[in-house]
């Protein structure tokens, strides 16, 4: 299941990130996971939210350049070797991982937000390998019950 991710360009100027976060906060948009890349001269904030369309609009209305793209949310056991096992299974498919960011859930598993160079091929390969991928609904709801 593809998950929509929003990416926002941040100019290398003080206050840009907080201005963006304020705009999202005022619109009541919650960020489930995010990563901030620093290329030295500019920043790129990528995040996952239950309301990607609205988040993109809010960011644009606040004067930011924003786009949405598809990533996968891999659900892995939260223990040593969990990620290594999945990546080993993907190797024969010649897929490459562009970037990843992760968060651990109270349910005891880890969610890897992953951008592959070819998202459709990656989905097929992961399905064959039996790796579980979260649907948007799971991603935003299943963190609620505490174990």
């Amino acid at each position: 299941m593809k998950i929509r991710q929003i990416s926002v360009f941040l100019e290398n100027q003080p206050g840009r990130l907080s201005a963006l976060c304020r705009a999202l906060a005022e619109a009541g948009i919650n960020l489930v996971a995010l990563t901030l890349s620093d290329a030295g001269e500019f920043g790129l904030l990528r995040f996952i939210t239950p309301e990607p369309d609205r988040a993109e609009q809010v960011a644009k209305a606040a004067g930011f350049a924003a786009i949405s793209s598809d990533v996968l949310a891999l659900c892995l056991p939260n223990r040593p070797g969990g990620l290594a096992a999945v990546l080993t299974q993907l190797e024969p498919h010649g897929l490459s991982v562009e970037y990843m960011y992760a968060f651990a859930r109270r349910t005891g598993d880890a969610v890897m937000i992953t951008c592959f160079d070819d998202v459709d091929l990656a989905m097929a390969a992961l399905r064959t390998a039996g790796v579980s991928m979260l649907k948007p609904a799971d991603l935003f709801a299943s963190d609620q019950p505490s174990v």
Partner: protein
Amino acid sequence: MISRLWNDLEGTFFPESALDFMPVERLREVQLQRLKTVVSLAYERVALFRERLDARGLKPADIRSLDDVRRLPYSMKSDLRDTYPYGLFAVPMTEVVRLHASSGTTGKPIVVGYTAQDMEVWKQVIVRALLSAGFTRGDIVQNMYGYGLFTGGLGLHAGLEALEATVVPASGGNSERQIMLMKDFGVTAICGTPSYFVHLIEVAQRMGVDFRRDLKVKRGLFGAEPWSDGLRKYIEGASGVKAYDIYGLSEIVGPGVGSECECRDGPHIFEDHFLVEIIDPDTLEPLPDGQEGELVFTTLSKQAMPAIRYRTRDITAIDPRPCSCGRTLRRIRRICRRSDDMFIIHGVNVFPSQIEAALLRTEASLPHYLIVLTRRSGLDQMEVRVEITGEMLRDRVGAMEQLQKRFARSIEQVTGLHIAVTLAQPGSIERSEGKARRVLDLRESKS
């Protein structure tokens, strides 16, 4: 006034345009006769011109052929500043019915004056410009040049009224209202600066207004600043508005010194009123047609403020090839640079238009950009800030760095210089409502 009789014929012939098709021999006769008159007038009434002619031992009677114009002294912007405000006027103030002034980036503005007859000539050349760009009676024209001291707004306004088009005197600014007016009033043609229109295209997109679907604007007459063919392609691609170039400068008359016909291959100069020369800006020697140099004009019919061999600082060439529209007026190549726009970075001459061309080559749509000049340890440094758009944005840092490199490489190919490119947030570069400000000069002392 436009004769309705003629308009009702095939719809293409307009008596006002007849002068554009004058036989060349006749045109040269008219020019010579008018040149003699204007030189006599200026000699009699303008002290600065008389002193300069006397210093060369020249008399107005020495002008016997058009080539004799080359014996006359040049004039330039500093002459207007030195004689501010009325020192170059050739008529008493009771004859002057209009003053215009340019903003002037340093100190005092420059002032220009018009007699009633000058106003009439100005109106006529603008009508000819509008007709050659396909504007007709029945068009609803939004004039987005600033109204006021700037020649653009009121100049075009007079021409549009004389054409009997419906004028919407919107002036510059208030971009969302401009789009609303275009939509609600059914505007079919526009006038303004190309950079402001580029901004309006962006505003319309943001408002969800599609030029092709929601608006009726078919053509635009753009001028008052140098703009590239790349920008024309961008304007036409992004809006479907056919873009024509109108050339002019206040010191000569304002807009309407020259203008493009339907072939859109450089402005035809209204040679019956403006004598055109190209000179080498360093040696000041006249250059033959086809060769690039500084554009110089002598006004042939101006009364209030004749200009004799006025150096425009615009760099171009006369294009002597006959135009397929049949006009006998020679064309100049489109002006993309001015000699005073030039700056020297690491010993290399750079024009803002080169940067624009490089950016257009990379992206195929013109991003907003700003050239920032600074001085570090006595050396001029240049940085180009480019605004990111949604189309340029990628979710991969590597792709964004590639974009930055592509801009830098393209600038290097055009200028031969390695220049730092910074990516900037949308809207972070100031939009201008008149002429675009493409250069931010932070050098402490300018030479």
